[in-house]
């Protein structure tokens, strides 16, 4: 599913290259549930942006579902994000003026899916996360946990190859966090490939594999399928 070979990400600051990620080699199989852990400043966010095709590496190869996307242009990256990656963010990132249903429809709008099909699939996705009765609510009328479940519904509605969750419980209390993580576990059981980025060990424990990043390098791995 994901193969990263010798990935380097660096920024030029005052004429000097600052390596945020250096020589990352990472393979994630289809169907895995992996957590990327690390303290802030470790480079885990940068790694997540690369995995999520929001950014491209300075050097190295990144094969996403067989395509080497390392040198892809913005347009191609957008296409991959749209069709193959579902994002769940810490702060939900829902559009406040759109109802839950319309928010879930968003990625399908960019995929060029017809209105009626969009509606059907959005309703189905919302039902799956247990929000059948909240479809027409605006995000402001929903609790934190409900918002995150709308975001999960939005992430899975295009049937992506990869579900990428960035601190999905960071803005939630522990009880709500639990239900959200159970949701991810359930999706993984159904076959979804999930990568979770977190700094909380408790949350990472839901994943079957933990990858720890520190100072731009992968320092330890546990529970990998390989």
């Amino acid at each position, binding site marked *: 599913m994901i193969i990263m070979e010798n990935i380097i990400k660096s920024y030029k600051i005052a004429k000097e290259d600052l390596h945020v990620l250096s020589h990352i080699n990472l393979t994630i199989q289809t169907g895995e549930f992996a957590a990327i852990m690390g303290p802030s400043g470790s480079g885990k966010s940068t790694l997540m*942006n690369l995995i*999520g095709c*929001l*950014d491209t590496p300075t050097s190295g190869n990144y094969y996403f579902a067989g395509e080497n996307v390392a040198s892809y242009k*913005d*347009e191609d990256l*957008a*296409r991959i*994000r*749209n*069709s193959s990656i579902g*994002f769940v*963010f810490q702060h939900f*990132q*829902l*559009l406040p*003026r759109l109802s839950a249903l319309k928010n879930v429809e*968003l*990625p399908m*709008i*960019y*995929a*060029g899916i017809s209105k009626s099909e969009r509606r059907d699939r959005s309703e189905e996705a919302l039902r799956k996360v247990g929000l059948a009765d909240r479809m027409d609510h605006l995000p402001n009328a929903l609790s934190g946990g409900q918002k995150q479940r709308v975001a999960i519904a*939005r992430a899975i509605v*295009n049937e992506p190859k990869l579900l990428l969750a960035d601190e999905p419980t960071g803005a939630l209390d522990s009880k709500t966090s639990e239900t959200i993580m159970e949701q991810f576990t359930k999706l993984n059981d159904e076959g979804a490939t999930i990568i979770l980025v977190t700094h909380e060990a408790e949350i990472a424990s839901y994943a079957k594999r933990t990858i720890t990043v520190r100072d731009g390098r992968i320092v330890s791995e546990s529970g990998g399928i390989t």
Partner: protein
Amino acid sequence: MSLMENLLMAVGSLQAHKLRSLLTMLGIIIGVGAVIIVVAIGQGGEAMLKSQIAGSGNTIELFYQPSNEEIAANPNIYNQAPFSQEDIRLVETIPGVKQVVATSSAFSTVRFREKTSDSSAIGINQAYLDVNDIEIAKGRGFAASDFISGRRVTMISSFMQEELFEGKSPIGEIIRIGAQPVEIIGVLKKPTGLLAFGSVEAYLPYNTWKTIFAKNEITQITLQAESADQIKRIGQTAAKKVNLLHGTEDSYQVINMEEIAQGLGQITKIMTLIIGSIAGISLFVGGIGVMNIMLVSVTERTREIGIRMALGATRKQVLTQFLIESMTLTLIGGIVGIVIGWGTSALISFFAGWPSLISWQVVAGGVLFSMIIGIVFGLLPANKAAKLNPIESLRYE
């Protein structure tokens, strides 16, 4: 993503800030409205001028402009009537001439009982009635027999009626032009329109005029051609013949009404252009307002843009979204402006007695132009939105 989808999205975004959208549109509404009003009134004015000037169809006037030598030889030459019956007979024979309108005018005191009025007495021939639209308010017009026999009958202008009769019916009353008694048979309608000046006048059949003033001379000759394309030729031939008859070089000339109308049309066109460009400037300012608000909107919605990009919107799709949004803004403004401009110019023309012309070209131009303004002034903000980095935008607070 379809255009309809984009339009609905744009309308939704504009509705989220109703007051702001309305105020931004106001610049476009005023600009487009002003342009519509100016053009409508300009075109209406031009059409009216043309119809007033070239109203009496296919006519051309012969006039006398004495040369310096002639004036030196006879300083009183302007006080003498330039034409005679002979001239009429001469120009009547030119092929293509339908009829010749002859008028003779003289100033005279008109008396009714104790009241007097300074008036011009105008002798006309029968052709005058055919060429000029004379509308009679009261009584009757001249009959053919009145012209032949030189009956002592007159039609007076509404202004003379006001001066001498104070609203009472003058039909059948006898007035004295100079010392000669004449019976009033008709009153003319009050003239309307821009070039209609109210004057105190009494119209007489030419033969009547001739006996009253004991003169056989003609002040003005107007030729009516059988068709419009003959006007120029007939005018030139007539001038040449009359010059030959009088032994003058180039003193008898013709005025082509069409040329005057064209000249006046030019003036109104220039006026329209000047005022129109001022209105255009206000439209430009309105466009800058749109750009300004769109820039604010892009900054405010940085996160939205980041979310859309993360979910797979391409830069092109983001660009299109904001372009369509600014275009929708100006398009709605433009349509409202057209409606308001239409209404206002209709109102103005109603009170000014002025035709208001709104052609479909102006409406289509207004719609198209407001759309173009939206695109042109939306380009910068939309480009700014499309260039945003999705990672930074998602973090934007």
